């Protein structure tokens, strides 16, 4: 069950890909049921039911816009799979 906060965050990321923080992505992915694993300079989010659905988010600098773009694509894939 996806929370309304995560859905709202996804809609906001669809609208603009700039200005998102590591904490925002953590809330988004955990809200959609992804697992979170940290190590080195990145955090990996992968879905327990669909392990191929994954993304690595850098945590060593200001995040670039590609992270939000890829996050939206990833969750759209999950939704298409019925997750």
């Amino acid at each position: 069950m996806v929370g309304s906060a995560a859905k709202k965050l996804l809609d906001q990321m669809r609208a603009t890909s700039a200005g998102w923080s590591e904490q925002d992505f953590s809330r988004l992915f955990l809200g959609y049921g992804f697992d979170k694993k940290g190590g080195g300079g990145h955090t990996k989010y992968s879905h327990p039911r669909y392990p191929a659905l994954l993304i690595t988010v850098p945590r060593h600098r200001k995040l670039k816009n590609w992270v939000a773009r890829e996050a939206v694509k990833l969750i759209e894939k999950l939704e298409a799979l019925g997750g």
Partner: protein
Amino acid sequence: MKSKEGKSKVVGVIVGTKGRVQHFGVELSLETDDDGSSYYLARSIEIPGCMSDGSSIEEALMNLGDAIQLCLTTSESATSKRAPIDKGYGSDLFVKGASLQLFQTKSSSSPASAVSGPIAESNLYPLPTRRGALANAK
């Protein structure tokens, strides 16, 4: 090494983890954010979703090497109970920048088939946060 914005090239990195060395294809592209800042985006071909960025090609490849290592170690820990990590370079990570051969657009088919050939030893980059990888790998 320069890349034209909007195009991507395929390179290779070698990642050593847990005593094994693996070659990964990388799709590398130059991106520009809304604020005008440019950076290189590096994506693993073999592990979709495993990606990172950097202000230079070398930095992007090193950061991607770190991300690949995370993907490898977490996927192995999920499927195997083998915990010990080998000593020596096996517990380190290093990335070899490739001698880049090809330029192609993202719409080109089968980027994996375009991974370039031998990688020069002179392009060996130890990760700054991990010591001894270069010395132990020789």
